[in-house]
């Protein structure tokens, strides 16, 4: 015991610099625990993105903008972009409005109803993709129960679930629960006394919403909107299951270029993917500037 102490003591004095280095290294030893996570995350999340960006600019092993030119020359791919954006914009706008009314009313009902409804919304938020597409076929397909019911009452002539409006309905369905869950906590910012104060000052209900509530909520509303747009643009499973890839949206185009049977063009798919990410980034930037200009930041 004594022996070891007397042996290490001089060595410590003799190599102060080395000891210092050793201590500095030891301080960073916990970082080792981050390594496995970072490696795995890099392999399955970051590396694919890098591959996509690099290869979107490659044609025949060298740098070129060929794929981007191809996209802008192809009416088919441009149509996919416009279909996706149309669906994303309108489904997000409609579900945001629905969710606003929903959450505003949800704040005014009994506690136990509220808790039950929030749990239920949580569950329906997970009801998407292939199972949802099947449920919609049963309900709104050519022989769907609701289609027949509405036809019988003469409200509609025919409903094509497999086209633009059918898809919009489907998108709205899976966006409403998400919008609700995202907006629900934001309504905590609204003080109940404000509404009473507005009424006392003679404001009508719509004036309260227009002048007080919506400006206060605007950062949350804009933030929710961007998540909904991203969610809708990236949606693939439900469209694919509903139309087996026959409706032209951008995710279906990308998938068919890498996993189709006939024409495999991974680099073109990469270029489309890059444009998709650019659009998402662009919307996010606009959104951030709007949020910055809104009520909360001025305060």
């Amino acid at each position: 015991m004594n022996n070891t102490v007397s042996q290490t003591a001089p060595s410590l004095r003799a190599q102060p610099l080395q000891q210092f280095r050793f201590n500095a290294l030891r301080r960073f030893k916990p970082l080792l625990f981050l390594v496995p996570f970072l490696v795995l995350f890099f392999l399955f999340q970051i590396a694919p993105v890098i591959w996509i960006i690099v290869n979107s600019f490659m044609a025949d092993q060298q740098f070129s903008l060929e794929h981007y030119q191809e996209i802008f020359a192809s009416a088919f791919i441009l149509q996919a972009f416009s279909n996706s954006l149309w669906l994303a914009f309108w489904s997000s706008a409609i579900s945001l409005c629905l969710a606003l009314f929903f959450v505003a009313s949800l704040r005014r009902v009994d506690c136990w109803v509220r808790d039950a409804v929030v749990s239920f919304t949580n569950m329906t938020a997970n009801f998407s993709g292939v199972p949802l597409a099947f449920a919609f076929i049963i309900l709104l397909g050519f022989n769907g129960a609701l289609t027949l019911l509405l036809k019988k009452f003469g409200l509609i002539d025919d409903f094509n679930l497999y086209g633009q409006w059918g898809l919009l309905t489907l998108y709205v369905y899976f966006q409403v629960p998400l919008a609700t869950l995202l907006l629900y906590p934001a309504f905590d910012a609204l003080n109940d006394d404000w509404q009473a104060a507005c009424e006392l000052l003679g404001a009508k209900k719509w004036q309260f919403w227009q002048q007080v509530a919506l400006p206060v909520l605007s950062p949350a509303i804009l933030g929710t909107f961007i998540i909904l747009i991203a969610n809708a643009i990236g949606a693939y499973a439900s469209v694919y299951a509903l139309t087996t890839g026959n409706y032209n949206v951008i995710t279906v185009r990308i998938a068919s270029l890498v996993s189709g049977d006939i024409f495999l063009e991974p680099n073109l798919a990469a270029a489309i993917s890059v444009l998709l990410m650019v659009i998402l980034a662009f919307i996010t930037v606009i959104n951030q500037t709007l949020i910055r200009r809104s009520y909360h930041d001025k305060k």
Partner: protein
Amino acid sequence: MIKSDQLYHYSVVYGICGLLFLPILATFFYSISSSWGATILPDGLTFKWYLMLWQDMRFIDAFSRSLLISGAALLLCSLLILPLLFVVFYYFPKLQALFNLLILLPFAVPPVVSSVGLLQLYADSAFPLVGTPWILIGTYFTIAVPFMYRAIANSFSSLNLNDLMDSAHLLGASTRQAFFLIVLPNLKKGLLASLFLSFSFLLGEFVFANMLVGTRYETLQIYLYNMRQTSGHFTSALVISYFAFIFFFTWLASRFSRGTQQ
């Protein structure tokens, strides 16, 4: 005035809930009806579709594959994220900003886009991953990361970690002991809530499974998709059975997350 207001609020809440519930209800009725052609109501009721489904070995196999992969991905996720968050929160709090950005990536990059890169990178690699369950475990790990990270990070920030660790050290515990005996039990609820929630949507994952593996390792969603040509009643029974599971797991999740708020 007040009464009519209440009436309005209740009708909005119940109305939207009803609309959200309609597809589930229709699917449920479809799954227990013997046949339902071009009429508004079904002809007769039966449970034979459920019996048929639960006796189908292909379904049992697909279901257990899904459970296995989701479970493995979540185990991996917890094993890597728990020490990571501890290190970040205890030793290097400044790294939080970096990780908050990193975990946004799975949101910003849609699965279809990631799989373009994944297919090219790992189809011809030395150890071919595409078409094997391994690549699904890896990608499911990335899907679960943002949710698990956020939930556990929230638990960590409500924990007062530094004081807790200091008192543990003062009482003679090593850092490892403190982590396993003090920090981990405190995170249990947040961890379980996020696990159940992630589990329920990993069971519903279709894009990666379809594009990277397909029928070579048939998961629940792929099976569901491949069964679309068979009887609609059969697929409805499948959808409802699947939804019952989702229901159960989200219910568990909300129970545990309510526990953490109190």
